[in-house]
């Protein structure tokens, strides 16, 4: 069980100090998660901490590749508008 940071990450550092397992590290072109350390905060917090503060939709995915903050979930911008922009 591990989350993954993907290319839409903007390197804002918000997640890194919150990780209880110290699994997140600075890398190029974006931050990465050490899958061996990550526990998805199971037993520590209700939700993975990285995904709870991440401001960018779709930047963190779970083990199945599903976005923990899907498109439209963080900004209230209607999905249709976001899809039209993408």
């Amino acid at each position: 069980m591990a989350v993954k940071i993907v290319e839409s990450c903007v390197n804002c550092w918000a997640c890194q100090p919150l990780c209880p397992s110290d699994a997140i590290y600075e890398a190029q072109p974006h931050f990465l998660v050490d899958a061996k350390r990550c526990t998805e905060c199971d037993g520590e917090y209700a939700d993975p901490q990285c995904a709870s503060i991440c401001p960018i939709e779709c930047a963190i995915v779970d083990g199945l590749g599903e976005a923990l903050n899907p498109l439209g979930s963080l900004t209230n911008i209607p999905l249709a508008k976001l899809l039209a922009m993408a």
Partner: protein
Amino acid sequence: MARNTPIESGKTGGCKASSCGSSSQQMSHLSEEIRQKVFNHPCYSEQAHHHFARMHVAVAPACNIQCNYCNRKYDCANESRPGVVSELLHPEQAVKKVMAVAAAIPQMTVVGIAGPGDPLANPERSFTTFRGIAEFAPDIKLCVSTNGLALPQHVEALSRHNIDHVTITINTLDEEIGAEIYPWVFWNHRRIRGRAGARILIEQQQKGLEMLTARGILVKVNSVMVPGVNDEHLKAVSREVKAKGAFLHNVMPLIAEAEHGTYYGIMEQRSPSAGELQSLQDACAGDMNMMRHCRQCRADAVGLLGEDRGAEFTLEKIETMEFDYEAIRAKRAAVQEAIALEMNTPKAAVTTVPLAMLRRRSAAPAALMAVATKGGNVINQHFGHASEFLVYEASERGVRFIGTRRTDQYCVGSDHCDEGEDKLRLAIEALAGCKAVLCARIGITPWEALEAAGIKPDSDHSMESIEEAVAALYQAMLTAGVLADDVEVGASVA
């Protein structure tokens, strides 16, 4: 022809008005202690911002809330608005950059951390930076600009680090309005949405404000005016923050362009007009000291307000620089002493020109007049070269500074940066509501376009002092009967 008077170069950059509204009244009731704290702080004193420079160091990338006017993905070197930076710095890089700027711009008195996220959501990075600066330059004033969510838990540390000035962005006291501005906050390890999130943010902001003022730390409150969302409500915000001891209230216009990718930009939320902003500032002014010289600068801005010399101090450029601390300190002290002396001369203290020469007439309308200047408090800039205009209100009571109007309107990217016709159109839009524009020179095309837009171009007062020229032109226009009675902008202000 007066229109072709050659321009002379004055000081460049920064706000060039010799007076920004009611600065002398604003300062006169202050205790000596507070006066000492603000006299050389460009963001807290209107007078100071003509003389002293500031810099923001972009060491704080993380944020703990989402605002509908912010988008963390956007980063453009040509863009100027809060939350935008070109280079994120580690604390040691930031300290080196401060040394470089302190050496090159000795009138730089203030270093702030304003983002691009929230300084208190990055406490390690922010406080390490402050300690590094205090070590080599204890004379530099330190400040932070925060959304307030993490403020109460850091008040003690702010005080310990001698941070004397804190700006809190407070957009509302009402969780319902808050939910329209903030989609979520991160609190106690959870993302909290809607009204519940807004309630927590508002509580922490108000608590933090009280804790700071109880310790004698000066607090400025920034508010973003969002028409139809919090505009009317900001009057209540102004009263409340004053009652809790805030020193200054800065109501800023929403910046929202679809190109920025923000919620408000994409949803086509409109920004307030200059007139709407001024009316709200005037309405709040009955209760509170208002700031009108804010330029809504970037989180890595360097220089006088209104200029950005950040490009001179990139990481690449400062990497190889060597510094002689003793020499820098001596030069800074000498330069700043000279400025303080100049500011204390009676000339600099004048803020309003009484229009004794104005012919008295009943109910003469107030009029907004724009000025193109490169500094030195004179009209010395070509109309076409102006990237911002200073706006003054002339009335029977005198001439007062109202604010600035930018012609590039927060630059919306290279596709929109065409010269010529587009630029002229933007300049005329920026001057909406003004009855005249005073400049050193102006071409025939913009002259005619301004006249067609009902704005009188004037280059007869080239190289004259701003307030006197504005007063003279106002009188001439009154006499000529070209000022309509429907321009009572700000006429209710004492």
